[in-house]
């Protein structure tokens, strides 16, 4: 999936200006990091891509089409094409690992056999195949994050977004998670990871977008 931001601004109702004049272009199959201090606008930028928020100005083009043209009814369909991973997992603890990962497939109406096959494939990729019957609560932080990733990729999205996916993890687990994202990128998924872990980002040797107080201050190679 190809993403283009054209002078995008976002001003919240409270008057806070989260983003202003942000422009960048993410090619199909590209992987990039989004860095900046907390409050720099990283989460807002991801929310605009997920259509959780709408921009106040500028255009966001997805595969050449403007997100502004999508009606409220078409938002769910857009979200099915985007996988998203959060720092706080957003897992449901009233069901097993399997059913957490299966959620995006159930929601899009996949049939039973297909759900089983694809959930196991996704869990296999993140190394949790043996734990599908567990409750996510019984697993470690790193494992929970990997459930979140499995859920984000189970629908074979064309774009994978991650908001501080390694926020609570130690360096070794963080590197493992980042490698996972890289693997998905290698099979053609466009990946954008927001992270403030500069050392880790530098080691990954990908394009880095840096936000500072809502403005894009650096768009280039790893620093």
């Amino acid at each position: 999936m190809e993403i283009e931001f054209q002078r995008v601004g976002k001003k919240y109702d409270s008057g806070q200006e989260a983003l202003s004049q942000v422009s960048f272009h993410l090619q199909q199959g590209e992987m990039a990091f989004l860095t900046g201090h907390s409050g720099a606008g990283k989460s807002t930028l991801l929310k605009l891509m997920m259509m959780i928020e709408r921009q106040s100005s500028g255009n966001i083009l997805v595969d050449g089409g403007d997100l502004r043209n999508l009606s409220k009814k078409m938002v769910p369909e857009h979200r099915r094409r985007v996988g998203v991973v959060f720092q706080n997992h957003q897992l449901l603890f009233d069901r097993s690992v399997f059913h957490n990962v299966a959620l995006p497939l159930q929601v899009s109406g996949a049939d039973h056999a297909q759900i089983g096959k694809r959930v196991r494939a996704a869990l296999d990729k993140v190394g949790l195949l043996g734990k599908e019957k567990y409750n996510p609560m019984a697993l470690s932080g790193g494992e929970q994050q990997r459930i979140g990733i499995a859920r984000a990729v189970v629908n074979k999205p064309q774009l994978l977004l991650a908001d501080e996916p390694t926020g609570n993890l130690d360096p070794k687990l963080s590197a493992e998670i980042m490698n996972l994202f890289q693997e998905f990128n290698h099979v053609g998924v466009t990946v954008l990871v927001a992270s403030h872990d500069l050392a880790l980002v530098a080691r990954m040797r990908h394009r880095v977008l840096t936000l500072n107080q809502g403005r894009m201050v650096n768009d280039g190679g790893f620093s």
Partner: protein
Amino acid sequence: MSARPNTNKAPQRGATRQANQPVNTQKPNQKAKRQPFNLSQHLRQHQAVLMESVVRLMNYPMASFMTLMVIAIALSLPGGLYVMLKNVQSVTDQWEQQSVISLYLFSELEDTQALALSHQISARDDVRSVSYVSKEEGLRYFEQVSGYEQILSSLPENPLPIVLQVIPMETVQLDTLDILESLRIELEEQEQVEYAELDAQWLQRLASFLSFGERFVYALSSLLVIAVLLIVGNTIRMAVESRRDEVLVMKLVGATDAYIRRPFLYMGFWFGVLGGLCACICILAVSFWVSGPAMQLIDLYHSDFQLTSFSASEVVVCLTISAIIGTLGAWIAVNKHISDIELQ
């Protein structure tokens, strides 16, 4: 959605904007996901959600049970009143009584004219017979029943009119009241008749009492239906609230509002159906319980009247109505609350 300033106000060169314009009118590529409508898949999903919503009810057995009981009681009240009304109506339907229309003729009328009228009326198809009560007969009868013999005999002349007692073909029943009443009016319109009276006042009173009862049942039913809507609505609102996290995650992974709504609507459906079922059981149980004393009472009146309760078709109607009320209550609550839960 928050108010967003017009993009055109952003400082930008006209040329750049124009270059973007053709691109902006396109919609993002949807080729991958527009799935064709698949009926069997759709039905399978509905079936799964239908069963899942039962499981959800079972997850909170006590709360679900109490909600069900409230719904059942609220529904069994109008249902019970309906059964009672139905029985009273059928009792009065079986109650046949010879009807009499008394025609009081003008007092200056001659006996011969009165007799002619009497023959004319008895020739009618809707009249069984007419009996002629002369002024003298009337006076004698009046003396007997009133005991004012002396006063009456001191009168210079007989003040009573000639009376024709018309016995119509129809007996007095609730559904013949209108026919008898129109016959009475028709007879009263005869120029010799001063006044016509239908001896069915008690039945007319009963009829108006029954129509009052009917209205009362309707009004009470409407109120209780609203109560059930509110009960189901409130229960579903709490269910939505307790599954807030799930709703958020489902929205995040691309669930449509219809998909999120569905299990809650089925929950309302089950509340309606099961509440209606409990109400039917209550009504049948109470009818059975009262039937003993009621039959004794009926025996005392030597009537062959049969007590009736809910028939099978009435049970079906009751369940259908309660299912609709339950689903509707859920619909109202869910529509409001699911859109309130937004990703942030």
